């Protein structure tokens, strides 16, 4: 492919850099950015052998549509400006302007003859009809490029730069192709208002800014009239594309999904968990016609659950960390609770984003200053202690909030996306730094600094960026969220669209390219406008999407859209939603709802700081050092093995109450139906009943249940079990055996108590020669006596099966072992009454014993001081319910099935 390839391995290739240095880039925003010209000029290039460019007939009507500013000038800029610019015009020819072309050069006189393309010397040189063929030293123009130039000349070679600039400067991005129209403020009022807005600080200013600046927006696209049924404008924009593309769905719209599919989809999409069986039944049995809309509203009103579902997404998008400093490395700060609260209160999105960046806002996320190895370490969303950190922070802001990938432009001009020469990116990054940034190209410092500047020219904004750092950040935030910022609103509504439909209106969602228009730009523009005009209210736009007919279409793999990075222009029609995999959080939380039949907000996965083999296999990152806006949803053997054989997955599925309750039901059909409602939120069909029934019958042993009564097995009473090694607070003195009359005793001769000192104490043993065999139906027990004159604040029991992972406690949550609200630290109630012997019972399932386990150690812990006595301890062996395993297996299969694992 020859010289068309830009070889980044040789960045600093002077010839290449100089050619680019000479080019003037015309972005879609009317911004002209001269690139660094500090590099050496190239030597005179050699002529290339003549290339015959195909030429075709010009349609005069089409020719009239060609825009000099948008289409023709860039061709000259990219191909001719090296040698024929205002500074350097070989043969006296300046191609950088229309007057320049009309004036022409020494060799051939005027380069263009308006109305006569083929008599224009320019065209003749381009075609090689006159030698040397142009551009000299560059590959010849393409057929399309030549055609555009000829069209433009035929139509009169008019210069429309001035009108384009006015249009774009006033109206912001017009990628949808609609004409900008200005709202009528007189210019002096507008100026005064702009001044007001751009000085001072505060949340109210932000809202005022938004109100005023909204007035500058062009009218949004009008939802088109369509034949297909439409619940709201979204459907109209979607169907219009079907009509345009001549798809049969334009006349015969795809069907909406069943109530069962809608129910599950919308529960997962809004609150991140499936419904309980009761909630599912209620919805499916409801016959009112607007029940779907009411369900959307009902779910959106569940503020905490809604917020819990959003939190992990934003934690990853901003790189929120669980701790400030890890191994001496500072982080972006811990924003989890702030994110959660922001969504609970449905904080306007522009305000939320600004609070990450703008120190002048009352809700600003203050940096946290810690210390490591004697040095202060700052944790903050915007990190700027080094050049590298500054540019990464800027790149993250651009990626997440403007859907624009600038990372490549950190170290050299973005060689794939002409929008981003390095200096343009560094100018943006400079807004997050105390000083302007130096151009460091491929790790070589250039000594050249770039003035801080927002990459998009927004109307009414002063050119100069404030110098004081706080004001600079304030300005960056203002411009980022400004309604006229072409990308901020579009990026977030695109993310919403992708979240609920599976693929964005532009893809990749982090990399908007002006040269790759979104599929359905009108819908994108309308959604963005609607979002902004409703106060950047996420719930408003979410509701728009979820109540549209498009969202409710039936899943159809033949109609499903795909995004192929090799063919990014391929249109997406949204005639079916795209199949989506449940995230790790959605999966585990839904299993928790299925097995407990209630949503315990405290047990949601996002609250856990632990990472396990299961959560990692399901795609939950172990740490959030690098930001991310999407989970991959990949399948892999390592993941399947966890679902198949992982202890954690087993415990989560099998130890729920739902299996317990099902055990008592004798009617197999009812059991199967119940489990289908619980897992898949629908009844089992007749064939599913039949299959389930034969599975259960094959798995269940004799119908007669074992009639043995429960057996109480005492493990320790007056002595440690044989072979046990004691230990605890106070080492040798940890275990104190006491007897009457000095201390209370429940049974036998002695009781035991803790002999050490301190607020939090324990005494335990490990290594019993004959371990206690405990199964999921069993109940562990112990007897405890709290001294009424000196009661503790918490008591805890721990069991050891090789690890200390099973814990139950009563009272306050002071002892920090394990993870709160998990079997590794399960609260079973308040402190028992003091002054009497109380029998404490711990069902094995509560502490995660879903499969039989050998316990070889037991620990007695207390916190908050006080005196606690313990006596007889052991396990009550309940007859193993033979139905537990088969029912659990059935539930496992339901949960492992694709219908559970995917949203469709």
């Amino acid at each position, binding site marked *: 492919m020859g010289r*068309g*390839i*830009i070889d*980044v*391995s040789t960045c600093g290739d002077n010839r290449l850099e100089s050619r680019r240095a000479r080019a003037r880039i015309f972005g879609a925003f009317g911004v002209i950015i001269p690139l660094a010209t500090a590099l050496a000029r190239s030597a005179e290039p050699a002529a290339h052998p003549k290339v015959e460019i195909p030429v075709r007939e010009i349609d005069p009507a089409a020719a009239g549509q060609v825009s000099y500013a948008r289409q023709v000038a860039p061709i000259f800029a*990219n191909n001719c400006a090296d040698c024929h610019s205002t500074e350097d015009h070989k043969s006296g020819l300046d191609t950088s302007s229309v007057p320049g072309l009309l004036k022409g050069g020494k060799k051939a006189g005027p380069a263009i003859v308006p109305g006569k393309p083929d008599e224009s010397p320019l065209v003749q040189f381009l075609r090689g009809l006159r030698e040397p063929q142009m551009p000299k030293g560059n590959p*010849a123009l*393409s057929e399309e490029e030549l055609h555009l130039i000829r069209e433009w000349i035929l139509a009169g070679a008019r210069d429309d730069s001035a009108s384009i600039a006015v249009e774009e400067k006033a109206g912001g991005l017009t990628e949808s192709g609609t004409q900008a129209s200005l709202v009528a403020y007189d210019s002096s009022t507008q100026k005064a208002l702009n001044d007001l807005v751009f000085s001072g600080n505060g949340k109210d200013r932000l809202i005022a800014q938004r109100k005023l600046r909204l007035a500058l927006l062009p009218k949004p696209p009008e939802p088109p009239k369509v034949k297909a049924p439409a619940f709201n404008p979204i459907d109209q924009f979607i169907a219009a594309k079907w009509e345009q593309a001549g798809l049969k769905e334009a006349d015969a719209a795809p069907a909406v999904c069943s109530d069962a599919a809608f129910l599950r989809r919308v529960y997962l999409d809004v609150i991140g968990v499936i419904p309980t069986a009761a909630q599912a039944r209620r919805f499916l049995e409801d016959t009112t016609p607007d029940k779907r809309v009411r369900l959307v509203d009902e779910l959106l009103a569940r503020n905490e659950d809604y917020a819990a579902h959003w939190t992990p997404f934003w934690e990853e998008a901003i790189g929120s960390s*669980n701790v400030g400093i*890890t*191994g001496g*490395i500072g982080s972006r700060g811990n924003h989890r609770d702030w994110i959660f609260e922001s969504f609970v209160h449905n904080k306007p999105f522009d305000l939320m984003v600004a609070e990450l960046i703008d120190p002048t806002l009352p809700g600003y996320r203050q940096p946290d200053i810690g210390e490591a*190895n004697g040095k202060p370490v700052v944790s903050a969303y915007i990190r700027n202690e080094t050049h590298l950190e500054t540019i*990464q922070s800027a790149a993250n802001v651009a990626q997440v909030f403007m859907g624009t*990938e600038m*990372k490549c432009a950190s170290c050299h001009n973005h*060689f*794939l996306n002409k929008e981003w020469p390095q200096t343009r990116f560094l100018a943006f990054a400079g807004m997050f730094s105390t000083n302007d940034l130096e151009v460091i190209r491929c790790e070589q410092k250039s000594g050249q600094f770039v003035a801080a500047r927002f990459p998009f020219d927004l109307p009414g904004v002063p050119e100069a960026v404030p110098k004081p750092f706080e004001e600079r950040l304030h300005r960056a935030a203002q411009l980022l969220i400004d309604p006229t910022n072409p990308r901020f609103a579009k990026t977030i509504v695109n993310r919403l669209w992708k979240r609920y439909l599976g693929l964005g209106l532009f893809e*990749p969602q982090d990399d908007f390219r002006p040269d*790759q228009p979104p599929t359905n730009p009108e819908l994108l523009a309308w959604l963005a406008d609607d979002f902004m005009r409703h106060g950047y209210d996420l719930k408003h736009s979410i509701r728009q999407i979820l109540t549209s007919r498009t969202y409710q279409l*039936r*899943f159809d*793999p033949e109609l499903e859209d795909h995004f192929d990075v090799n063919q990014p222009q391929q249109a997406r029609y949204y005639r079916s939603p795209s*199949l989506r995999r449940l995230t790790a959080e959605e999966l585990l939380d839904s299993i928790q709802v299925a097995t407990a039949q209630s949503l315990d907000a405290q047990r949601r996965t996002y609250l856990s700081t*632990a*990472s396990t*083999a299961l959560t990692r296999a399901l795609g939950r*990152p*172990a*740490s959030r*050092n*690098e930001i*991310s806006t999407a989970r991959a*949803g*990949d*399948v892999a*053997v*390592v*993941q*399947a*093995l*966890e679902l*198949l*054989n*992982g202890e954690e997955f*087993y415990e989560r599925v099998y130890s729920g109450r739902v299996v317990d309750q099902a055990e008592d039901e004798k009617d197999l059909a009812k059991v199967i139906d119940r489990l289908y409602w619980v897992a898949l939120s629908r009844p089992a069909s007749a*064939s599913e009943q039949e*299959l389930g029934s034969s*599975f259960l019958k*094959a*798995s269940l042993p004799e119908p007669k249940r074992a009639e043995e009564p429960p057996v109480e097995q005492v493990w320790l009473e007056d002595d440690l079990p044989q072979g046990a090694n004691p230990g605890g607070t106070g080492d040798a003195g940890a275990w104190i055996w006491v007897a009457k009359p000095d201390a209370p005793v429940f049974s036998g001769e002695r009781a035991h108590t803790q002999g050490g000192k301190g607020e939090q104490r324990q005494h335990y043993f490990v290594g019993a020669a004959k371990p206690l065999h405990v199964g999921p139906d069993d109940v562990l027990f112990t007897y405890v006596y709290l001294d009424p004159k000196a009661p503790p604040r918490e008591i805890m029991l721990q069991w050891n099966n090789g690890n200390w992972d099973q814990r139950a406690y009563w009272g306050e949550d002071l002892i920090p072992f394990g993870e709160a609200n998990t079997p590794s630290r399960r609260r079973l109630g308040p402190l028992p009454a003091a002054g009497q012997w109380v029998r404490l019972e711990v069902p094995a399932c509560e502490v995660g014993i879903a*499969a*039989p*386990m050998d316990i070889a150690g037991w620990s007695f812990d207390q916190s908050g001081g006080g005196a606690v006595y313990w006596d007889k301890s052991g396990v009550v062996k309940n007859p193993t319910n033979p139905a537990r395993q088969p029912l659990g297996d059935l539930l496992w299969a*339901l949960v*492992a*099935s694709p*219908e559970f694992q*995917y949203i*469709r």
Partner: protein
Amino acid sequence: MKNSITRRDFIRTGLAAAAGAGFSRCAFGDTPAAAPAKAAAQLVAKADAMIHIWLPGGIAQTDTWDPKKYTPFQAGMKGSELLGTCEPIPTSADGIFLGKGLDNIASVMHRGTILRSLTNETKFGAIHLKAQYYMQTGYLFPTGVKTPSLGAAVARTLGRRNPQVPAYIYIGRDIDTSDEEKLFISEYLGPGFYGVKYAPFMIPDPAKGLATLNAVSGMKMDRLDRRQSYLRAMTGLAEAELQKANRVKDYLKVMEDARAMMDSPVKRAFDYRKEEKPETVKAYEPEVGADDLLDKTYYYGNRFGQGLLLARRLVEAGARYIQVEYQYGPFKGFDMHESGRTRMIEMKRQVDRPIAQLIRDLDQRGLLDRTLVMISTEFGRTIASEPAAGKEPDGFAERHTGDKLVIENEKMYGFHGHFSSGNCLAFFGGGFKKGFVYGKTADLHPMLPVENPVRLEDVHATVYKALGIPADTNYVTEGRPFYVTKDGKGVPIDGLLA
């Protein structure tokens, strides 16, 4: 034709080439099918498998791979006088000496190469995690990308050797944790943007094998199979649309693959206690137990030693890349900031015999030539900069001569400063030279490389070359290539290869 490549052009040709592995940026014009064949012709792999013995903490090279003069402790001696806390001992390779305590490894030195002159400009200071990240990925944190580790790159590029054995296996590291440092580490050991398909199969304790290859305790195999066929059957009753979706088909396929792995004869590789002679298992034990250590709570000796035995068996069964770690802990193990001499004696006893036994076993089985064993750590050590051992405030030594340091007691006697400027690696088998030393360091502090200093990206390129992977192999993320050596610029050091 335009004079610049559109993103579309790059993606179409570059990605297609990168679908297997993007071998060279200049391969844009080649058809995708040609690219792998072309690369294969360029590089002939000398090794089929790799065992990476990862000993983090920062090993004092002066007491191990690059011994200097033995300078015994004398109260009041200057730091600049402390050149070695142990004697250099001769090895089975003429002219090559190792630190006393590595006697077993010394006896197999004729099968391997020591690289003594790895250096780099970046001073990691006190931050182990950044140095480890660099060693494992070849990139400096933060990169702005979820950077894959060496093992994931090998797994993705070369794939499995035996279809039943995972390509990337990790032995000796705990999995479940909420400790932030461990979480950070698990990210850099992971597949990064490659995704979960290239994640390591973790084996924290070799004695327990790969936990998920066995059914949950209490689950009998006939029950497991009944459950599996029920899953298959009830999925077949699901909505037709769901069954037709490709993603669903992939999901069901990996479930079946996972089930099949459980029956694979490869499982026997984990049964080393049953299948190996007791003398062999014993030979992999460290020569010191938990009770003998200064820090009794930090002992991974058996996990490490048996992990090496397991690694050997997995290579025999057809594994591709196995990393065995003596699990890192801040200030534990090799991360010595006091009592360096004593602790080095302990740590050498932990690793010396097992490693040597691994080399011997591979050799005896004729596997050593095609199996690359690499032993690495994140940086070397030097004398501390401050009298208060272990409390240096300035990011730890680096270029000190040690004149200002006075070693008053045994606790201060040892190499307690981090030394990013000088690090050693050892290579056995896999096409590397035998009985060879590459590079030389100064004999006095700072003991910087004075001959043949090498960069990490070149070391990585050499390892990749031995495995048959070009240094500019890359995979696309966020629309741009990300290379397995830093920016694709690694150059193999042919002087290391036979």
